[in-house]
């Protein structure tokens, strides 16, 4: 006897514990199985790209913090590097090192949050999240030490960084670097080989290599699919060519690989920071630039390896003191392209962790 069934429209978000902000998916479910999905964007659209056109280059700086608000430092860095490239501003060596330290610390923060919330999506009752948050707080304290803010740092400037490191910073950072490897090991032992985690995330939400490249995925999502593509390696910016580090890649492109790639990247980031601290030169940290300087007319695309993928700023100048157009290549946004292909056929519970393993930040998706 055939049971009469009917698909169910399920509205995930914009207010939902696992959509990491105000993302919304309109899912068509057949029982627990997702048969179709439509992502809905725009709940956090602030028109940052339009705002940029009415602000001076410097005034736009604090707004870049608000793109991906868990990686302000990276956003700052990508933007100031684009403008520096456009205007030919030189950056003191010390500032380059400080920038690298900050960017990598920020990567650690963002990855810790990504992993922690990934486990939350999987159903652990906040335990890994809290373990990671404690370490994240320590980095936040370090950031507070250098720039006085705890979330939206606005630390980098054209031609350097806004403040030099206070004397307490390096000892505090060294202490953090010493204790962090043991912490990472702890996170791994806690859940990395847990049978339930394996059962939930292995071979779940597979993004094949071909699909990842075709869908312009970037960052850990792309690398988990086995593509060895890290902007820090393939197109070294700033002073990344001076450091020795590996690019972890996955093999299957499933949720588990995406999670493990992030964990491995924590170790690599620590590696880079350690090298940067050892090589930190003395000197000034800022080549002052006029507040309302006018870069020459032209355009520039400058990218960095943000913690969620390639973060690029396409800055077009018409020679005035305000940018003519700024386009942000937002990794969170573009990584979502393949979401539909990854979700269809999986169960509702899988959908949540697949979505969590992509690790998006709505501030960057909607801009």
């Amino acid at each position: 006897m055939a049971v009469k069934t009917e698909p169910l429209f399920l509205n995930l978000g914009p207010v939902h514990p696992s959509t990491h902000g105000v993302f919304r998916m309109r899912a068509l479910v057949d029982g627990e199985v997702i048969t179709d999905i439509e992502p809905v964007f725009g709940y956090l659209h602030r028109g940052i790209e339009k705002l940029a056109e009415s602000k001076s280059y410097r005034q736009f700086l604090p707004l870049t913090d608000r793109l991906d608000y868990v990686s302000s430092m990276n956003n700052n860095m990508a933007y100031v590097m684009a403008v520096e490239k456009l205007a030919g501003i030189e950056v003191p060596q010390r500032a380059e090192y400080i920038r690298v330290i900050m960017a990598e610390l920020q990567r650690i923060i963002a990855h810790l949050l990504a992993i922690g919330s990934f486990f939350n999506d999987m159903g652990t009752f906040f335990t890994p999240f809290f373990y990671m948050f404690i370490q994240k707080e320590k980095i936040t304290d370090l950031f507070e030490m250098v720039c006085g803010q705890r979330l939206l740092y606005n630390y980098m400037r054209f031609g350097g960084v806004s403040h030099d490191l206070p004397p307490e910073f390096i000892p505090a950072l060294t202490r953090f670097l010493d204790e962090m490897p043991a912490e990472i090991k702890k996170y791994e032992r806690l859940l990395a080989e847990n049978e339930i985690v394996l059962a939930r995330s292995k071979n779940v939400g597979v993004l094949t290599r071909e699909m990842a490249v075709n869908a312009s995925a970037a960052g850990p999502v792309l690398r988990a699919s086995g593509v060895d593509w890290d902007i820090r390696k393939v197109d070294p910016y700033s002073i990344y060519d001076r450091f020795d580090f590996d690019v972890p890649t996955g093999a299957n492109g499933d949720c588990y690989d995406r999670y493990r790639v992030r964990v491995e990247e924590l170790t690599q980031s620590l590696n880079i920071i350690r090298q940067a601290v050892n090589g930190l030169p003395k000197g000034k940290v800022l080549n002052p630039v006029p507040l309302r300087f006018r870069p020459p007319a032209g355009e520039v695309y400058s990218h960095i390896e943000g913690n969620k993928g390639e973060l690029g700023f396409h800055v077009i100048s018409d020679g005035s003191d305000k940018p003519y157009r700024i386009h942000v290549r937002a990794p969170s946004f573009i990584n979502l392209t393949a979401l539909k292909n990854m979700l269809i056929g999986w169960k509702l519970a899988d959908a949540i962790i697949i979505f969590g393993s992509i690790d998006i930040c709505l501030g960057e998706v909607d801009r």
Partner: protein
Amino acid sequence: MPFKRYGNGIARGMAITLSHVVKKPVTTQYPDERLSTSKRIRGTELGWSAHECSACLLCQDSCPHGCIEIKTSGCRSETMPAPCSSKCPANVDAARYINLLSQGKPGEAVAVIRERIPFPVVCAYVCAHPCEAACTRGHLDEPIAIRMLKRYAVDNDNGVWKSRTAPAPPSGKKVAVIGSGPAGLTAAYYLAKKGGHSITVFDDLPQPGGMVRVGIPDYRLPKHLLDRDIDEIKALGVVFKMNTSIDSAHELLKQGFDAVFVSIGAHQSSRMKVPGDDDPRVLGGVEFLRPVNSGQKVEIGKRVVVVGGGNTAMDAARTAVRLGAKEVSIVYRRSRTEMPAANEEIEDAEAEGVKMMLLANPSRIFDDNGQLKVECLKMRLGAPDESGRRKPEPVEGSEFIVEVDNVIAAIGQKPVIPKAFDFELEWGNIKVGSDMATSVPGIFSAGDCATGPATIIEGIAGARTAAESIDKFLGGTGDISEKLAEDQSCPAGDNASVTWGTRPAFPMIDITLRRTTFEGAEKSWDRDTAGFETSRCLKCGQFEVAHYQLDAGRCIFCGLCVESCNFHALFMGRGYERTGYLLEETVLQKEDLAVDRLVTPSAYYHTELEEGLPAQTLLVEGKLKA
């Protein structure tokens, strides 16, 4: 890359959580505890000091959200020198004459300049303008073209200042001035005018003016304009004894002069100290310029290399172009940004076809079958030294050879001080105290011979100090200050917002003309352009701030305003999570901030802030450490 395997699955995870039960819990800190643990450079309080605020509006302009509102009311009651005047060695009140120019009073503007220096025309054409480097507007986009405005003023001078001044009665004292450069003539001018002394100026050159006359080419400063300034000095009855070489200042004292002022300048080029620099085709910068500027006919080869990156190098190169050299290059060992010459000079030189060979340094000069050749080494900028300036290092094996007809070494000058002067020297210069007195009583010195090669305005400033000292030495008051012009005015609503626009271009004569004649290369601005340029002035330190308000509801505490403040009038407190967002609470007077809420000054990027803060805030250091 395979991932690390750990094994043990659920059991290991359970063990880890269990082990955490006995560990000390981590907790967030509450505001009070936080205050003493972590330093906060940017907090949720904005401090503002009416005392230091210059109402330049930079903070208002840099705010991304437009939260800052400043209202002004009339002229400032307590004086606050604008950076352009305080950074000027002679303290010419640039802010005031720009204000007067903006009201269309060039005569008054010249009078303001005349209050401090007797060479308004010379300075209007060739001053090195340290004021522009200090200009607050330069912090915003481009500095006000103060020199160009000055030039507009002197070109449209109506001589109104002359009616407001009169020479002092004769004092009967005699002063000898050795050297008729800007320093010597400045001293002569003030001693004659304000002290009433009778002055005799000696110089071994045929005409007065010193380095200004023989070192600065005509295309920058036509000689008749120099004479305009010198004529004013001659009009005071100063006696000029030209073509007179003085061997000893002591002789002059014995001849009946009551005091002697030595300003013999620095007229000898430094040598390059490379093999072959004694070749006759290798010239010194000033030695090359002197005959040219004295109107003599000078032959120069077709290919000329000028070594050095200062203003003298630019002058030599551009002069060589005008003398017919086909290929003129400047060899400088650092990159262009490090060049000490004024930027506009470099640009003009390039426009006239001078090639820049940057990051190169001559290592050898030799004669190859009658052909003069210069061997150069390529340089690279090495690691920054303690000062942060990157040091040039030679690149091994990067020699290249340039064929030339003449080499001009413009790498610096030094004074030639006759032995019989018998002064105590320092670094080859005459040693003087802060009152410009030499080791011999009654003899004073200033200018390049005392400071080493420097700018005109520094020479004038030194000479002013010397004139005061000499006047006091001779029994006068030592007061040489004058008041020749009216005060600035501060109309209401004049400082509502920043006027937008870039600095207008400097008009130049036709480029082909520039390359062939010594006619003045730069032209004066017209009235409208000058008027626009004066409107760009931020008028710092001019207005009284009646009302400073921060819209704390919209402020995001990005700190851009604090960094943009050149006067340290703004700063962030490190208060944590203040409950109320009342305006009165968030914008605090500096004095109102409790001591323990202020940041340590060293955390700011303005390192000089430490001196700028009132003494009480330095207590913070001790308190935080405790």
